[in-house]
């Protein structure tokens, strides 16, 4: 797939993830990394190595119940196969760790939204502190996160309680085109928002 088409597919994935999140009625604000206006930061920098930028695809504010007013960021993989998702996932946990460490106010929840599962045999261990540590200790991430090629030095620099905290904030979603359509109907959604507006809660 040529770069432009790849980029468009990524943008479409972010857009579709935003639409689905909004359709849950549990999101009050959302934006994508493709937007022309950035109401909130979705782009950060690796602290070491070449200090390259990294970013999340979607961000926003949750609404209602236990998540009311919480900030979230999401990584979207508009993939038709497992492809190289595992590799990206390992980088993503490192990004989550850094974002929570350095910009904790911006990310109460980290969401991985994909259209195809990966590492199915290890699925139930993806959102664990071990999984976060594993990502952090990959060679490329040791350099970018801790500035050292040495594994044991990097390991000593990991804040275990932070890794545990981050793992507890990770969400895994596998969407499908049909699931995107199986959401509250526009008519019923209109009822919800009309009622909220009547009650002055919108």
């Amino acid at each position: 797939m040529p770069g432009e088409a790849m980029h468009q597919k990524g943008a479409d994935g972010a857009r579709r993830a935003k639409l689905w999140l909004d359709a849950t009625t549990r999101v009050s604000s959302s934006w994508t990394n493709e937007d022309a206006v950035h109401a909130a930061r979705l782009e950060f920098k690796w602290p070491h190595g070449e200090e390259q930028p990294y970013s999340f695809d979607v961000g926003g504010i949750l609404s209602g119940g236990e998540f009311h007013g919480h900030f979230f960021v999401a990584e979207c993989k508009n993939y038709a196969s497992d492809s190289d998702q595992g590799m990206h996932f390992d980088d993503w946990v490192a990004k989550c760790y850094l974002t929570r460490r350095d910009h904790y106010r911006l990310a109460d929840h980290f969401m991985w939204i994909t259209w195809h599962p990966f590492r199915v045999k290890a699925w139930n261990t993806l959102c664990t502190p071990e999984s976060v540590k594993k990502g952090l200790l990959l060679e490329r991430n040791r350099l970018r996160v801790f500035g050292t090629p040495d594994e044991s030095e990097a390991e000593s620099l990991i804040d275990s309680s932070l890794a545990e905290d981050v793992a507890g904030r990770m969400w895994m979603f596998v969407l499908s085109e049909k699931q995107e359509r199986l959401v509250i109907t526009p008519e019923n959604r209109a009822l919800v928002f009309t009622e909220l507006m009547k009650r002055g809660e919108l």
Partner: protein
Amino acid sequence: MDEFSVVISDLTDQDPSRNVSSIKNAVIARLEASDQGVRIESTEFFNHTYAPDLVLHWQGDGQSRQVYLRTSDNPDYIREDISAIAGKNPIIMPLVPLRDSAGSGELETASASASTLVATPSSINEFAEVRTDSAVSGLLSHAVLQGGRGLLSEERVRSVSSAVDAGFAAAQLSEPEETRQAVVAAERLLDPARAGVLTRLLHAVWLGSGAPASAFPGATGITADLDPVSLKLLLDITVSDDPEFWRRIASGITLEKLCELEISADSESLQHLIAASVDRLRAKSLRVSGIKNPELSSLALRWFVSAGLLGFESRNYVTHFSPGPVSSMGTVDRPNPIPPHLSLLIHRASSAGINLDEITIESDDGRRIDYRPPSGTEIWRDNVLDQLASVLGQKRSAAVSAVVPLPGGARHLTCDLESLTASGRTAAKFHLSELIQFAIPLLRDLSRVESGQLIEAIGGLED
């Protein structure tokens, strides 16, 4: 880079909620600048696919419209949003100009047919920028916020504003081509209801110019009558100071219709309209009250419409005219005057040349006499009245009411000097000019300047 671009390029706050508030406040400021009548409610949502960011409300007509802000500049996404929130006739507001793409034409079609307005804050703000002292620019931006549709660029704001301005000027001169272009521009940009308001206004101005209704270019099915909304708009803006123009407009208006509106004494158009129709508009009753307005120049007499009544204020008193009976003026400040001594009433009648054919006089001890002079007697030359007054007791002999025979003989106007009101029999109606000429001078003492004001208000005395 305008102020709005500065706001959105300067979102450095670590708290996204505060950035969202900055954006919303900047948008609200722009909307308020383009329409002073709008009240804006902000929701807890932002850039949400299905929930609005802002709800616009208008006082009076109970209208509201939802605004969906958009951080994306992709026209294809905006088009998807139109179908997602179809049926709400919303405003979708990209915060920055949309990317040029093949989708722009489709977006224009899709938004126009879904009665959705797609406009950036800067393009809405352009209405405030192009506003001159032209009659209709405020009206147009109000109509666009309420019922605009299609894709609105800053350039389109400028072109439609100038087409509508030119159309109003052209309609006053009966020039069909530019009038037609204004009708067409309004119909393309506005939903049928708002386009109808503008077209009826143009039509009224067209008729006011003296041109025949059948020659009006554009929309068919427009009636000559102005509905209350259009009439209000016409009176809120300054179209013309030509008495003939206002006389033609007035030909389709009744006091009942006028009194459905609220129009402040600041409206110059209302002053022109009444001046052109004091001998046409008819009221059932009138009340003079003592509310002073020292702010007014001693020569000013200003008409207003409020709480179902037409009125004028001047420096020392206010007068209300009602299309209904005296009881319909219940809300008006109720004076509690002591009725004048009989001789004072006679003096008032004599100074104003008003004859009376019945007077009710009250004695010191509350006894009343209805006195009718022999027909043809001028009341101020009637010696019997003087004698009556002295018999009743010099201290008071108050005149509590008087009946004025109006020219033509068949109608009588009763002036009640206890309540400072004037009215006739149940169904009787009087031209404003009659009430001004025959009632007010009996109901209160007028200075020479005040008498002159009234004569001027009814266009001078004919004889």
